[in-house]
């Protein structure tokens, strides 16, 4: 029930964003609002049940604090790290100076959502690329410039695990 409602709510939000500026009721026309509600309900019923995702996951999606944190994270540290990453890659593209390897770190995350967030962040940030995540949430990371064969998580991805824990755990 919660799962369907959450999914439906998310769908409704996306539908409303898509149909913005369509009428006079706020930004929407009446038809769009009605149709959007119906369609969102339908999507909630269809997509509310995805294997292996419990209610806790959906509750996380409903928490506005997490979303706010996520936005802060996105425009703050994440964007900065990405900028750095690109300069780094540019440097390596031009000089060709690389020292790659696959390393393993254990950031100690518990939820899938946090692991995914961290994994995607890692992929987009300096010199690192998530290759695999195992059951205990150990990350196997391809590092373009290996400084230490057995690094600590901070060495590879800075304060991302802490952000991920705060946002999605």
């Amino acid at each position: 029930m919660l799962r369907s409602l959450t999914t439906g709510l998310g769908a409704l939000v996306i539908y409303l964003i898509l149909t913005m500026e369509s009428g006079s009721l706020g930004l929407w026309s009446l038809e769009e609002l009605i149709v959007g509600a119906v369609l969102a309900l339908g999507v909630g019923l269809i997509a509310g049940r995805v294997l292996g995702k419990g209610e806790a996951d959906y509750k996380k999606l409903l928490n506005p604090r997490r979303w706010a944190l996520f936005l802060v994270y996105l425009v703050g540290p994440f964007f900065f790290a990405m900028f750095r990453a690109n300069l780094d890659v540019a440097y390596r593209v031009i000089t060709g100076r690389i020292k790659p390897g696959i390393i393993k770190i254990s950031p100690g995350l518990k939820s899938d959502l946090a692991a995914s967030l961290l994994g995607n962040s890692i992929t987009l940030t300096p010199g690192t690329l998530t290759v695999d995540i195992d059951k205990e949430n150990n990350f196997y990371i391809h590092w373009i410039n290996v400084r230490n064969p057995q690094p600590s998580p901070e060495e590879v991805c800075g304060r991302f695990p802490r952000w991920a824990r705060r946002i999605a755990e």
Partner: protein
Amino acid sequence: MSKLVRTIGWLLYAPILIFGFYVIMHGHLTPGGGFQGGAVVASGFALLIVAYGAKGAGLKERLLSVVESGGALIFVGLAFLGLGATFFYNFLAAGGGVVFNELVPPGPNPGDLNTAGTLPLMNWAVGLKVLAGLGSIVLLLALFPSEEE
């Protein structure tokens, strides 16, 4: 697939679905319509299949087949309902119905959904048919036992 892909697939599933429905719903106003929206929704099913495996995706072949038949029946049925004048006659747009009985006003107007007669209904019928049909194509091919099994 890995945990990461599964989670992102879980997050993207509902947006893809609602986007497909959006495309179907606005078929008579903007580019898109039953075919495209159905294909988008079916791609959502394909995403679920690739992330969670054919058995884990929770798609029911029988249900899809019923939806497919239903969509096609609605389509042909709507065409038959036009038989008062001709097959496929847009009987709603001529003021015969309660909903959709206005012509589409000219100009950019993404909000005027309640227009164009039977076209939105037909779009929905085609959309249901296509999403169920294409979804079941992928599902059946994925479920097909391969040689090792």
